[in-house]
C-alpha cells in the first residue's frame, strides 16, 4: 500500500492506495499516529485509490478517530469506492464517520 499526505488549509489530507487490510493496517496506523503526534487535529483520509478495506482497516479508522476526538480534533473520509462503501454500510461505520464524495466537499467547512 502507498501512503501519501499533504496539508490543505490546516487539514492533513492522507491518501491510501491499494488495500487497507491486516497486512497494511500497522503501516497506516503509524502514518496517522505520526501526524497526530506532530500536532495535527484535523485529518481527511482520501480513499479514492483504495481497492478494499478489511476489519483491520476499520480498526485503524476507529482508533484514529478516538485519538483525534480526544484532542479536540476530527476525522473525515472521502472517495469511497463501491466495495469500501458497502463495508462501511454493513459495519455501521457510515453512521459514525463523516463521509464525503470528494476531497473538495470534505474540506469545505472542516
Amino acid at each position: 500500500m502507498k501512503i501519501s499526505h499533504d496539508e490543505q488549509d490546516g487539514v492533513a489530507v492522507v491518501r491510501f492506495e491499494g488495500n487497507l487490510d491486516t497486512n497494511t493496517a500497522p503501516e497506516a496506523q503509524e502514518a496517522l499516529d505520526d501526524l497526530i503526534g506532530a500536532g495535527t487535529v484535523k485529518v481527511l483520509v482520501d480513499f479514492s485509490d483504495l481497492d478494499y478495506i478489511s476489519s483491520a482497516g476499520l480498526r485503524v479508522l476507529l482508533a484514529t478517530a478516538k485519538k483525534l476526538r480526544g484532542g479536540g480534533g476530527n476525522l473525515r473520509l472521502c472517495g469511497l469506492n463501491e466495495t469500501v462503501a458497502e463495508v462501511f454500510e454493513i459495519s455501521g461505520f457510515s453512521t459514525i464517520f463523516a463521509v464525503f464524495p470528494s476531497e473538495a466537499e470534505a474540506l469545505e467547512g472542516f
Partner: protein
Amino acid sequence: METTFVLEVPNDLRAIERAVDLVVGRCQTCESQARRFRLNFRVALAEALANAMLYGNGSDPHKRVRVDVTVNDAEVSARVTDQGAGFDPDAVEDPTTPENLMRPGGRGLFLMRQLLDEVRFNDRGNSVTLILRLEESASFDEAASA
C-alpha cells in the same frame, strides 16, 4: 461440473493477498455473480485467512492455514482451516449495536456473514466455510419455500 483445489498457506499475513488472488483467479467461471465474487468473496476470504493466522494459529510462523475451494454451477465455497484449538463463533457480539459500535473488535466475522450467502463453522471452531451462491434461482427457491 465441479472443480476443487487446495491451498496450503504459510502463517504469514503477507501471504493473504496472494492466496486470495490465486483463489479468485482460478474461479473465473463464476460469471453470474461476478461482482459479488470479485468483491465480497475476496474481502470475506481475506478476513477468514487473517482470523485463522492471528487468532487460530496465534501468529505462529510454523503453522499453516489450509484452504479447500470448491466451485460448481450452484456455488463457490472456501473452507479455511487453521491448526488452533478453535473458538465459539456464537460468543462474538454484534459490532453494530450502539454499545459495540465504537469497540475495535468483532467486525471480521460480522463482515464475512454479511458479505456472503452462508458462513458456517465446524464443531471445534477452527474451520470456517464461506459460501457464495451462483445461481440466482437458488436464493429465490429458498425464499419461496421458507
